[in-house]
Protein backbone atom coordinates (compact mmCIF):
# COMPACT_ATOMS: atom_id res chain seq x y z
CA UNK A 1 0.00 0.00 0.00
CA UNK A 2 1.43 3.39 -0.96
CA UNK A 3 1.67 6.14 1.68
CA UNK A 4 -0.98 8.14 -0.20
CA UNK A 5 -3.37 5.22 -0.06
CA UNK A 6 -2.60 4.68 3.63
CA UNK A 7 -3.33 8.33 4.29
CA UNK A 8 -6.61 8.00 2.44
CA UNK A 9 -7.40 4.94 4.51
CA UNK A 10 -6.74 6.88 7.71
CA UNK A 11 -9.02 9.60 6.41
CA UNK A 12 -11.77 7.03 5.72
CA UNK A 13 -11.48 5.62 9.25
CA UNK A 14 -11.72 9.13 10.69
CA UNK A 15 -14.79 9.86 8.55
CA UNK A 16 -16.37 6.61 9.74
CA UNK A 17 -15.66 7.67 13.31
CA UNK A 18 -17.20 11.06 12.58
CA UNK A 19 -20.47 9.50 11.40
CA UNK A 20 -20.51 7.13 14.36
CA UNK A 21 -20.03 10.04 16.76
CA UNK A 22 -22.66 12.13 14.98
CA UNK A 23 -25.27 9.39 14.95
CA UNK A 24 -24.37 8.29 18.45
CA UNK A 25 -24.92 11.72 19.92
CA UNK A 26 -28.07 12.47 17.89
CA UNK A 27 -29.72 9.29 19.13
CA UNK A 28 -28.18 9.32 22.60
CA UNK A 29 -26.72 5.83 22.22
CA UNK A 30 -23.08 6.92 22.11
CA UNK A 31 -20.43 6.67 19.41
CA UNK A 32 -19.18 3.14 20.15
CA UNK A 33 -22.53 1.52 19.52
CA UNK A 34 -22.47 2.81 15.94
CA UNK A 35 -18.72 2.52 15.43
CA UNK A 36 -18.34 -1.23 16.01
CA UNK A 37 -20.91 -2.32 13.37
CA UNK A 38 -19.63 0.33 10.97
CA UNK A 39 -16.02 -0.86 11.20
CA UNK A 40 -16.81 -4.57 11.09
CA UNK A 41 -19.50 -4.51 8.38
CA UNK A 42 -18.19 -1.82 6.04
CA UNK A 43 -14.46 -1.58 6.72
CA UNK A 44 -13.59 -5.25 7.22
CA UNK A 45 -11.95 -4.50 10.56
CA UNK A 46 -11.70 -7.59 12.81
CA UNK A 47 -14.17 -7.24 15.66
CA UNK A 48 -11.47 -7.26 18.36
CA UNK A 49 -9.89 -4.13 16.86
CA UNK A 50 -13.30 -2.55 16.28
CA UNK A 51 -14.30 -2.96 19.92
CA UNK A 52 -10.86 -1.81 21.10
CA UNK A 53 -11.05 1.35 18.99
CA UNK A 54 -14.62 1.90 20.13
CA UNK A 55 -13.78 1.67 23.82
CA UNK A 56 -11.01 4.24 23.50
CA UNK A 57 -13.19 6.56 21.41
CA UNK A 58 -15.92 6.26 24.01
CA UNK A 59 -13.61 7.77 26.63
CA UNK A 60 -12.85 10.70 24.32
CA UNK A 61 -16.51 11.55 23.72
CA UNK A 62 -17.46 11.00 27.33
CA UNK A 63 -14.74 13.34 28.58
CA UNK A 64 -15.47 15.88 25.85
CA UNK A 65 -19.17 16.25 26.56
CA UNK A 66 -18.97 15.60 30.30
CA UNK A 67 -16.68 18.60 30.73
CA UNK A 68 -19.59 20.84 29.70
CA UNK A 69 -22.24 19.05 31.76
CA UNK A 70 -20.10 18.91 34.90
CA UNK A 71 -19.42 22.61 34.63
CA UNK A 72 -23.15 23.34 34.29
CA UNK A 73 -23.67 21.28 37.45
CA UNK A 74 -26.35 19.07 35.97
CA UNK A 75 -24.47 15.80 36.33
CA UNK A 76 -24.29 14.47 39.87
CA UNK A 77 -20.65 13.56 40.51
CA UNK A 78 -21.42 11.91 43.84
CA UNK A 79 -24.13 9.58 42.54
CA UNK A 80 -21.98 8.82 39.50
CA UNK A 81 -18.94 7.77 41.49
CA UNK A 82 -21.05 5.70 43.89
CA UNK A 83 -22.51 3.78 40.96
CA UNK A 84 -19.08 3.36 39.37
CA UNK A 85 -18.32 0.83 42.13
CA UNK A 86 -20.50 -1.64 40.24
CA UNK A 87 -19.70 -0.57 36.67
CA UNK A 88 -15.93 -0.87 37.14
CA UNK A 89 -16.27 -4.34 38.69
CA UNK A 90 -18.59 -5.21 35.80
CA UNK A 91 -16.10 -3.85 33.27
CA UNK A 92 -13.32 -6.05 34.66
CA UNK A 93 -15.59 -9.11 34.47
CA UNK A 94 -16.78 -8.16 30.98
CA UNK A 95 -13.29 -7.58 29.61
CA UNK A 96 -12.07 -10.89 30.97
CA UNK A 97 -15.10 -12.57 29.38
CA UNK A 98 -14.12 -10.89 26.11
CA UNK A 99 -10.59 -12.29 26.43
CA UNK A 100 -12.07 -15.74 27.01
CA UNK A 101 -14.40 -15.43 24.01
CA UNK A 102 -11.64 -14.27 21.64
CA UNK A 103 -9.04 -16.80 22.76
CA UNK A 104 -11.58 -19.55 22.13
CA UNK A 105 -12.53 -18.18 18.70
CA UNK A 106 -16.11 -17.55 19.72
CA UNK A 107 -16.30 -14.18 17.93
CA UNK A 108 -19.84 -14.92 16.75
CA UNK A 109 -21.10 -14.53 20.33
CA UNK A 110 -19.91 -10.93 20.34
CA UNK A 111 -21.74 -10.24 17.06
CA UNK A 112 -24.97 -11.79 18.33
CA UNK A 113 -24.83 -10.06 21.71
CA UNK A 114 -23.92 -6.76 20.10
CA UNK A 115 -26.85 -6.97 17.72
CA UNK A 116 -29.22 -7.92 20.54
CA UNK A 117 -28.02 -5.14 22.86
CA UNK A 118 -28.28 -2.59 20.05
CA UNK A 119 -31.83 -3.64 19.15
CA UNK A 120 -32.97 -3.73 22.78
CA UNK A 121 -31.46 -0.31 23.52
CA UNK A 122 -33.66 1.29 20.88
CA UNK A 123 -36.90 1.29 22.82
CA UNK A 124 -35.72 2.90 26.07
CA UNK A 125 -33.59 5.38 24.11
CA UNK A 126 -36.42 6.35 21.79
CA UNK A 127 -38.88 6.58 24.65
CA UNK A 128 -36.71 8.77 26.85
CA UNK A 129 -37.50 12.41 26.98
CA UNK A 130 -41.18 11.72 27.46
CA UNK A 131 -40.91 12.40 31.17
CA UNK A 132 -38.45 15.18 31.77
CA UNK A 133 -38.92 15.10 35.52
CA UNK A 134 -40.17 11.87 37.13
CA UNK A 135 -43.13 11.78 39.53
CA UNK A 136 -41.80 12.37 43.05
CA UNK A 137 -41.28 9.21 45.11
CA UNK A 138 -40.84 9.19 48.88
CA UNK A 139 -37.13 9.05 49.77
CA UNK A 140 -36.02 5.70 51.20
CA UNK A 141 -33.14 4.85 53.57
CA UNK A 142 -30.63 4.85 50.72
CA UNK A 143 -31.55 8.40 49.74
CA UNK A 144 -30.11 9.76 52.97
CA UNK A 145 -27.29 7.28 53.45
CA UNK A 146 -25.91 7.78 49.95
CA UNK A 147 -26.73 11.50 49.89
CA UNK A 148 -28.73 11.26 46.70
CA UNK A 149 -30.46 14.59 46.77
CA UNK A 150 -29.61 17.35 44.40
CA UNK A 151 -30.78 20.36 42.49
CA UNK A 152 -30.16 21.66 38.99
CA UNK A 153 -31.40 24.57 36.97
CA UNK A 154 -33.56 23.52 34.04
CA UNK A 155 -33.18 26.07 31.25
CA UNK A 156 -36.30 24.92 29.42
CA UNK A 157 -38.61 24.78 32.45
CA UNK A 158 -36.89 27.95 33.72
CA UNK A 159 -36.76 26.77 37.33
CA UNK A 160 -34.65 24.85 39.84
CA UNK A 161 -35.51 21.18 39.88
CA UNK A 162 -35.01 19.43 43.25
CA UNK A 163 -34.70 15.67 43.15
CA UNK A 164 -33.85 12.72 45.35
CA UNK A 165 -32.86 9.29 44.14
CA UNK A 166 -34.14 6.05 45.64
CA UNK A 167 -33.15 2.37 45.64
CA UNK A 168 -29.39 2.81 45.40
CA UNK A 169 -28.90 -0.95 45.49
CA UNK A 170 -31.17 -1.47 42.47
CA UNK A 171 -29.10 1.07 40.58
CA UNK A 172 -25.93 -0.82 41.50
CA UNK A 173 -27.34 -4.09 40.15
CA UNK A 174 -28.21 -2.52 36.79
CA UNK A 175 -24.77 -0.87 36.72
CA UNK A 176 -23.02 -4.19 37.25
CA UNK A 177 -24.64 -5.49 34.08
CA UNK A 178 -23.93 -2.23 32.25
CA UNK A 179 -20.27 -2.66 33.18
CA UNK A 180 -20.16 -6.27 31.99
CA UNK A 181 -21.71 -5.30 28.65
CA UNK A 182 -19.25 -2.41 28.33
CA UNK A 183 -16.22 -4.63 28.89
CA UNK A 184 -17.52 -7.46 26.73
CA UNK A 185 -18.68 -5.42 23.73
CA UNK A 186 -16.36 -2.43 23.93
CA UNK A 187 -19.09 0.17 24.22
CA UNK A 188 -19.93 2.69 26.93
CA UNK A 189 -23.36 1.14 27.55
CA UNK A 190 -24.72 4.58 28.37
CA UNK A 191 -28.25 3.54 27.40
CA UNK A 192 -28.23 0.89 30.11
CA UNK A 193 -26.83 3.33 32.68
CA UNK A 194 -29.60 5.79 31.88
CA UNK A 195 -32.09 2.96 32.31
CA UNK A 196 -30.72 2.17 35.76
CA UNK A 197 -30.86 5.72 37.04
CA UNK A 198 -34.18 6.49 35.39
CA UNK A 199 -36.23 3.37 36.12
CA UNK A 200 -34.56 2.06 39.25
CA UNK A 201 -33.48 5.25 41.01
CA UNK A 202 -36.14 7.67 39.80
CA UNK A 203 -33.74 10.47 38.87
CA UNK A 204 -34.71 13.23 36.39
CA UNK A 205 -33.78 12.57 32.77
CA UNK A 206 -31.31 15.47 32.56
CA UNK A 207 -29.44 14.18 35.60
CA UNK A 208 -29.37 10.57 34.38
CA UNK A 209 -28.14 11.36 30.88
CA UNK A 210 -25.43 13.77 31.97
CA UNK A 211 -24.30 11.64 34.91
CA UNK A 212 -24.22 8.55 32.70
CA UNK A 213 -22.13 10.57 30.29
CA UNK A 214 -19.26 11.06 32.68
CA UNK A 215 -19.61 7.57 34.15
CA UNK A 216 -19.16 6.01 30.71
CA UNK A 217 -15.58 7.34 30.58
CA UNK A 218 -14.61 5.69 33.88
CA UNK A 219 -16.16 2.37 32.87
CA UNK A 220 -14.49 2.46 29.46
CA UNK A 221 -11.11 3.35 31.02
CA UNK A 222 -11.29 0.16 33.10
CA UNK A 223 -11.98 -2.00 30.06
CA UNK A 224 -9.48 -0.14 27.87
CA UNK A 225 -6.49 -0.97 30.01
CA UNK A 226 -7.33 -4.68 29.91
CA UNK A 227 -7.94 -4.41 26.15
CA UNK A 228 -4.56 -2.75 25.79
CA UNK A 229 -2.60 -5.58 27.37
CA UNK A 230 -4.71 -8.21 25.60
CA UNK A 231 -3.69 -6.65 22.27
CA UNK A 232 -7.16 -5.55 21.15
CA UNK A 233 -6.13 -1.99 20.38
CA UNK A 234 -4.74 -1.34 16.91
CA UNK A 235 -3.26 2.13 17.29
CA UNK A 236 -3.78 3.22 13.68
CA UNK A 237 -7.53 2.56 13.85
CA UNK A 238 -7.90 3.75 17.43
CA UNK A 239 -6.19 7.07 16.71
CA UNK A 240 -8.40 7.68 13.67
CA UNK A 241 -11.66 6.78 15.38
CA UNK A 242 -10.87 8.70 18.57
CA UNK A 243 -10.37 11.88 16.54
CA UNK A 244 -13.36 11.18 14.27
CA UNK A 245 -15.85 10.16 16.94
CA UNK A 246 -14.93 13.13 19.12
CA UNK A 247 -15.47 15.56 16.23
CA UNK A 248 -18.69 13.83 15.21
CA UNK A 249 -20.27 13.90 18.64
CA UNK A 250 -19.23 17.53 19.07
CA UNK A 251 -21.08 18.46 15.88
CA UNK A 252 -23.95 16.17 16.89
CA UNK A 253 -24.59 17.98 20.16
CA UNK A 254 -24.58 21.34 18.32
CA UNK A 255 -27.14 20.04 15.81
CA UNK A 256 -29.25 18.43 18.53
CA UNK A 257 -30.04 21.69 20.31
CA UNK A 258 -31.11 23.31 17.05
CA UNK A 259 -33.01 20.38 15.60
CA UNK A 260 -36.61 21.55 15.50
CA UNK A 261 -38.16 18.47 13.97
CA UNK A 262 -37.72 15.66 16.49
CA UNK A 263 -39.16 13.15 14.01
CA UNK A 264 -35.86 13.13 12.12
CA UNK A 265 -34.52 11.09 15.01
CA UNK A 266 -36.57 8.16 13.75
CA UNK A 267 -34.49 8.02 10.62
CA UNK A 268 -31.38 7.62 12.78
CA UNK A 269 -33.07 4.93 14.84
CA UNK A 270 -33.80 3.08 11.60
CA UNK A 271 -30.09 3.15 10.73
CA UNK A 272 -29.23 1.81 14.18
CA UNK A 273 -31.76 -1.01 14.00
CA UNK A 274 -30.37 -1.91 10.57
CA UNK A 275 -26.87 -2.16 12.05
CA UNK A 276 -28.20 -4.18 14.99
CA UNK A 277 -29.99 -6.69 12.76
CA UNK A 278 -26.93 -6.97 10.52
CA UNK A 279 -24.64 -7.76 13.50
CA UNK A 280 -27.09 -10.33 14.87
CA UNK A 281 -27.41 -12.07 11.49
CA UNK A 282 -23.66 -12.03 10.90
CA UNK A 283 -23.06 -13.70 14.27
CA UNK A 284 -25.70 -16.38 13.60
CA UNK A 285 -24.32 -16.93 10.13
CA UNK A 286 -20.71 -17.25 11.32
CA UNK A 287 -21.79 -19.86 13.81
CA UNK A 288 -23.77 -21.75 11.19
CA UNK A 289 -27.09 -21.52 13.07
CA UNK A 290 -28.66 -19.47 10.29
CA UNK A 291 -26.42 -19.16 7.28
CA UNK A 292 -26.90 -16.13 5.08
CA UNK A 293 -24.99 -14.53 2.24
CA UNK A 294 -23.90 -10.95 2.61
CA UNK A 295 -26.52 -9.45 0.21
CA UNK A 296 -29.28 -11.51 1.82
CA UNK A 297 -28.29 -10.18 5.24
CA UNK A 298 -28.45 -6.60 3.96
CA UNK A 299 -31.94 -7.27 2.63
CA UNK A 300 -33.26 -8.90 5.80
CA UNK A 301 -31.70 -6.19 7.98
CA UNK A 302 -33.28 -3.43 5.91
CA UNK A 303 -36.67 -5.13 6.17
CA UNK A 304 -36.34 -5.70 9.93
CA UNK A 305 -35.32 -2.09 10.43
CA UNK A 306 -38.32 -0.70 8.51
CA UNK A 307 -40.82 -2.92 10.36
CA UNK A 308 -39.25 -2.41 13.78
CA UNK A 309 -38.96 1.34 13.56
CA UNK A 310 -42.44 1.94 12.15
CA UNK A 311 -43.84 -0.22 14.94
CA UNK A 312 -41.84 1.61 17.58
CA UNK A 313 -42.81 4.97 16.11
CA UNK A 314 -46.53 4.16 16.24
CA UNK A 315 -46.25 2.72 19.75
CA UNK A 316 -44.53 5.76 21.19
CA UNK A 317 -46.84 8.13 19.31
CA UNK A 318 -49.81 6.35 20.90
CA UNK A 319 -48.29 6.66 24.36
CA UNK A 320 -47.62 10.34 23.82
CA UNK A 321 -51.23 10.87 22.78
CA UNK A 322 -52.37 9.17 25.99
CA UNK A 323 -50.01 11.37 28.01
CA UNK A 324 -51.65 14.47 26.58
CA UNK A 325 -55.13 13.18 27.51
CA UNK A 326 -54.05 12.54 31.10
Amino acid at each position, binding site marked *: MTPALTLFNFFLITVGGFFAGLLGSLTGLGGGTVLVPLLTIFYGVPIIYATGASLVSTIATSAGSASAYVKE*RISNVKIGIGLEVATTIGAVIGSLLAVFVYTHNLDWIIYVLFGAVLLFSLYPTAEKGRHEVPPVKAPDWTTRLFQMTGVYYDARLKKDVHYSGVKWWAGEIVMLFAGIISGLLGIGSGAMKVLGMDWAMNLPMKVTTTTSNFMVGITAATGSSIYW*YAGYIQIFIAAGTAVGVLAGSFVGTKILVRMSNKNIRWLFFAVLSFLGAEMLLKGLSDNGIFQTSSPLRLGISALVSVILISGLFLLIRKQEAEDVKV
Partner: protein
Amino acid sequence: MSKYELNDILSMVLRIGVVLSLVLLLTGITLLFVLHGGGGYTLEQVANYKPGQSTLNSSAIPLTGMVNGLAHLNGIYYITLGLWVLIFTPISIVVIALVEFIMSKNRLYIVLSMIVLFDLFFAMLVVPALFHV
Protein backbone atom coordinates in the same frame (compact mmCIF):
# COMPACT_ATOMS: atom_id res chain seq x y z
CA MET B 1 -12.98 23.24 48.54
CA SER B 2 -16.54 24.17 47.80
CA LYS B 3 -18.90 22.28 45.53
CA TYR B 4 -18.59 25.14 43.07
CA GLU B 5 -14.84 24.75 42.71
CA LEU B 6 -14.95 20.96 42.43
CA ASN B 7 -17.13 20.98 39.32
CA ASP B 8 -14.97 23.63 37.68
CA ILE B 9 -11.75 21.72 38.34
CA LEU B 10 -13.29 18.47 37.06
CA SER B 11 -14.50 20.18 33.91
CA MET B 12 -11.08 21.72 33.28
CA VAL B 13 -9.22 18.43 33.83
CA LEU B 14 -11.53 16.63 31.40
CA ARG B 15 -10.97 19.27 28.76
CA ILE B 16 -7.19 19.36 29.18
CA GLY B 17 -7.06 15.54 29.02
CA VAL B 18 -9.00 15.39 25.76
CA VAL B 19 -7.07 18.21 24.06
CA LEU B 20 -3.68 16.85 25.15
CA SER B 21 -4.58 13.38 23.92
CA LEU B 22 -5.81 14.72 20.57
CA VAL B 23 -2.57 16.65 20.07
CA LEU B 24 -0.51 13.54 20.86
CA LEU B 25 -2.57 11.29 18.59
CA LEU B 26 -2.30 13.67 15.64
CA THR B 27 1.43 14.23 16.28
CA GLY B 28 1.94 10.47 16.29
CA ILE B 29 0.05 9.97 13.04
CA THR B 30 1.97 12.82 11.40
CA LEU B 31 5.31 11.37 12.55
CA LEU B 32 4.37 7.95 11.19
CA PHE B 33 3.65 9.44 7.77
CA VAL B 34 6.61 11.83 7.66
CA LEU B 35 9.16 9.26 8.86
CA HIS B 36 7.50 6.35 6.97
CA GLY B 37 6.83 4.36 10.13
CA GLY B 38 8.57 4.15 13.47
CA GLY B 39 10.39 1.87 15.88
CA GLY B 40 11.36 -0.65 13.20
CA TYR B 41 7.84 -0.91 11.79
CA THR B 42 7.04 0.42 8.35
CA LEU B 43 4.04 2.69 7.89
CA GLU B 44 2.33 -0.13 6.03
CA GLN B 45 2.81 -2.54 8.92
CA VAL B 46 1.45 -0.05 11.44
CA ALA B 47 -1.60 0.66 9.28
CA ASN B 48 -2.43 -2.95 8.42
CA TYR B 49 -5.40 -4.27 10.34
CA LYS B 50 -6.59 -7.02 8.03
CA PRO B 51 -7.32 -10.37 9.72
CA GLY B 52 -4.26 -12.60 9.72
CA GLN B 53 -1.97 -9.87 8.37
CA SER B 54 -1.95 -7.38 11.23
CA THR B 55 1.56 -7.17 12.62
CA LEU B 56 1.21 -4.48 15.25
CA ASN B 57 -1.33 -4.21 18.03
CA SER B 58 -1.19 -2.93 21.57
CA SER B 59 0.19 -6.16 23.06
CA ALA B 60 3.38 -5.65 21.01
CA ILE B 61 3.94 -2.14 22.35
CA PRO B 62 5.67 -2.35 25.74
CA LEU B 63 4.91 0.72 27.83
CA THR B 64 8.42 0.54 29.26
CA GLY B 65 9.73 1.79 25.91
CA MET B 66 7.71 5.00 26.21
CA VAL B 67 10.49 7.48 27.11
CA ASN B 68 12.89 6.07 24.56
CA GLY B 69 10.18 5.97 21.89
CA LEU B 70 9.15 9.58 22.46
CA ALA B 71 12.79 10.73 22.42
CA HIS B 72 13.33 9.00 19.07
CA LEU B 73 10.21 10.58 17.57
CA ASN B 74 8.61 7.18 17.21
CA GLY B 75 5.03 7.93 16.12
CA ILE B 76 3.81 4.67 17.63
CA TYR B 77 4.67 5.90 21.11
CA TYR B 78 3.11 9.33 20.56
CA ILE B 79 -0.15 7.60 19.70
CA THR B 80 0.31 5.23 22.64
CA LEU B 81 0.84 8.12 25.04
CA GLY B 82 -2.20 9.88 23.55
CA LEU B 83 -4.35 6.82 24.16
CA TRP B 84 -3.08 6.42 27.74
CA VAL B 85 -3.67 10.10 28.49
CA LEU B 86 -7.22 9.41 27.36
CA ILE B 87 -7.50 6.38 29.67
CA PHE B 88 -6.13 8.37 32.61
CA THR B 89 -8.45 11.34 32.10
CA PRO B 90 -11.55 9.77 33.70
CA ILE B 91 -9.35 8.17 36.36
CA SER B 92 -8.08 11.58 37.42
CA ILE B 93 -11.71 12.62 37.91
CA VAL B 94 -12.12 9.91 40.54
CA VAL B 95 -8.87 10.98 42.23
CA ILE B 96 -9.97 14.63 42.40
CA ALA B 97 -13.38 13.64 43.71
CA LEU B 98 -11.67 11.49 46.36
CA VAL B 99 -9.61 14.49 47.50
CA GLU B 100 -12.81 16.49 47.78
CA PHE B 101 -14.50 13.75 49.82
CA ILE B 102 -11.47 13.58 52.14
CA MET B 103 -11.56 17.33 52.66
CA SER B 104 -15.28 17.33 53.38
CA LYS B 105 -14.81 14.23 55.61
CA ASN B 106 -17.47 12.33 53.70
CA ARG B 107 -16.45 8.87 54.95
CA LEU B 108 -18.86 6.77 52.91
CA TYR B 109 -17.82 8.41 49.66
CA ILE B 110 -14.12 8.20 50.55
CA VAL B 111 -14.61 4.43 50.75
CA LEU B 112 -16.70 4.27 47.56
CA SER B 113 -14.26 6.26 45.45
CA MET B 114 -11.36 4.19 46.80
CA ILE B 115 -13.15 1.01 45.70
CA VAL B 116 -13.55 2.52 42.21
CA LEU B 117 -9.84 3.40 42.11
CA PHE B 118 -8.98 -0.09 43.32
CA ASP B 119 -11.01 -1.59 40.44
CA LEU B 120 -9.27 0.68 37.95
CA PHE B 121 -5.79 -0.23 39.13
CA PHE B 122 -6.76 -3.87 39.40
CA ALA B 123 -7.61 -3.73 35.70
CA MET B 124 -4.40 -1.89 34.96
CA LEU B 125 -1.83 -3.74 37.08
CA VAL B 126 -3.18 -7.06 38.31
CA VAL B 127 -5.13 -8.30 35.28
CA PRO B 128 -2.28 -7.74 32.76
CA ALA B 129 0.02 -9.80 34.98
CA LEU B 130 -2.40 -12.68 34.48
CA PHE B 131 -1.80 -12.58 30.74
CA HIS B 132 1.86 -13.40 31.20
CA VAL B 133 1.24 -16.49 33.30
